[in-house]
């Protein structure tokens, strides 16, 4: 299990600036509640070029919320009655069910409960519906991570290149077109940070 920010390093050709930048990054991550979401973070800054590179690994194990967690599913005359107990997920749940069954085949009894037609096997369909994801923290995480990266990077660095996946983020920013060397540095840091993961 990764601890929050177990690896956090800012490398730079200007060590004094790197130390100050570490503070900036800590402040931004705290402000946006991202400290616990990011496991490792490596930053590379070369003010001479100038270029700003961030590579980070997300902490795994952020649970998603499925329809089974927030709704009761019962058999009724017309099919399966799904009543969402937690109202905040009702809209997403109804939307997802619309997509799956089609709008005309669904009976919405009220805002939080709907009836879908029974297909073949009740137990199978019950499990299917239960596993529909209604809330994925990763979506929100992605948004706040992008926000954080833009806040952290120097404002003048408007040329940006980024990559975000389920577990990794990489970001290069500069005021000049991105050079091949910088992408190489980014790759090196990425392999180092992943290497580190293998050691744990």
């Amino acid at each position, binding site marked *: 299990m990764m601890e929050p920010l177990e690896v956090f390093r800012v490398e730079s050709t*200007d060590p004094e600036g790197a130390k100050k930048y570490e503070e900036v990054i800590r*402040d931004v991550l705290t402000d946006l509640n991202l400290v616990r979401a990011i496991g490792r973070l490596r930053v590379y*800054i070369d003010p001479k070029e100038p270029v700003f590179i961030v590579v980070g690994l997300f902490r795994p194990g952020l649970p998603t919320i499925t329809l089974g967690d927030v709704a009761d599913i019962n058999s009724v005359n017309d099919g399966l009655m799904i009543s969402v107990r937690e109202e905040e997920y009702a809209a997403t749940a109804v939307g997802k069910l619309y997509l799956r069954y089609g709008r005309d085949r669904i009976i919405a009894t009220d805002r939080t409960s709907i009836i879908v037609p029974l297909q073949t096997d009740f137990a199978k369909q019950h499990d299917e519906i239960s596993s529909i994801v209604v809330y994925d923290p990763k979506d929100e995480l992605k948004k706040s991570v992008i926000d954080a990266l833009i806040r952290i990077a120097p404002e003048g660095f408007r040329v940006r290149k980024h990559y975000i996946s389920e577990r990794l983020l990489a970001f290069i920013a500069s005021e000049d077109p991105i050079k091949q060397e910088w992408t190489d540095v980014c790759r090196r840091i990425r392999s180092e940070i992943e290497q580190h993961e293998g050691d744990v």
Partner: protein
Amino acid sequence: MEPLIYQGGLYKHEQMIELIEDLGGYILQKNVLQLDVIVVMLVPNADLPLVEAKAKELLGKLTKAPLAGAEIAVVTPTLAYQHLPHLACDLAEYLRRAGSKTNMIGLARGVGKRVAQLKASEIDLINEHDAAVFTYGNFKECIKEKTKLFRDIEVPIVVTGGPTMTLAEVPGCVAYIGGLGRVMHRTRQKDELAILDQLVEATGKALDERRAELDKDPLSVSPPRVMHEIEKQIPDIPESLAPTPLTLQLNGLRIKVPYKEYKDRILDVKFDEGIYMREVAKLHPSRMKDYIILRIMPRSETGFII
């Protein structure tokens, strides 16, 4: 005259104001905050004990205001969240507590290293102030490069930044204050506040040098007196809704009313000696809205001092 800030209750504070006026001092700025009042004022040195006694009687507090009577620009690379609010606002607030009037200027293209530049209108606007504080970032390389922005600025510049640097490494400024840089939190640690004190001191020193420069060819009339006469003779100017409608500067005033409408009325203000404002001062349209910049002519131009 000694610049002071009086902080006290609203009740009976008029007594303090009347005392200052009777002594021949000037009220530069008065802020009423609910039941509190903060007055920035100039007191004749000889009468300090009287004012101190009055402050004691009214249970108010007197503090020195080394930057009183100056308008200072706090310049940030832009107004985006990378640079605001924390550091820029803290700097401005700190300078304000020392008695100055501060204006925050966010540049249009001040960001980056190679791409940073100043617009002509920004240069003019900064030059309208008595001093400018530039807030720069964390890297030596970038601060050095960005000294190119100082080229056309004629007022003393104080630079704040992250790294420790000598003045020689930052050409074009009168003082460099390290240890700040880009800060994304409120500056409230003890060591951070000590740096802000340094900044106030450096700015004060820069203004003192500017005053000494002005003293070589003294102004025909002192700016507080001009301010006082305008307040008295054109009473609708102090009524203007702009913050501090009459802002004192070292060699003049910023008057926050429309230029065209008020130009002639201001030039017609008459001093007790029978001299008109048009004989001792020039008016220019300001770069800030359609305000007026008043510049007092030195003795070498008018041939007299009143």
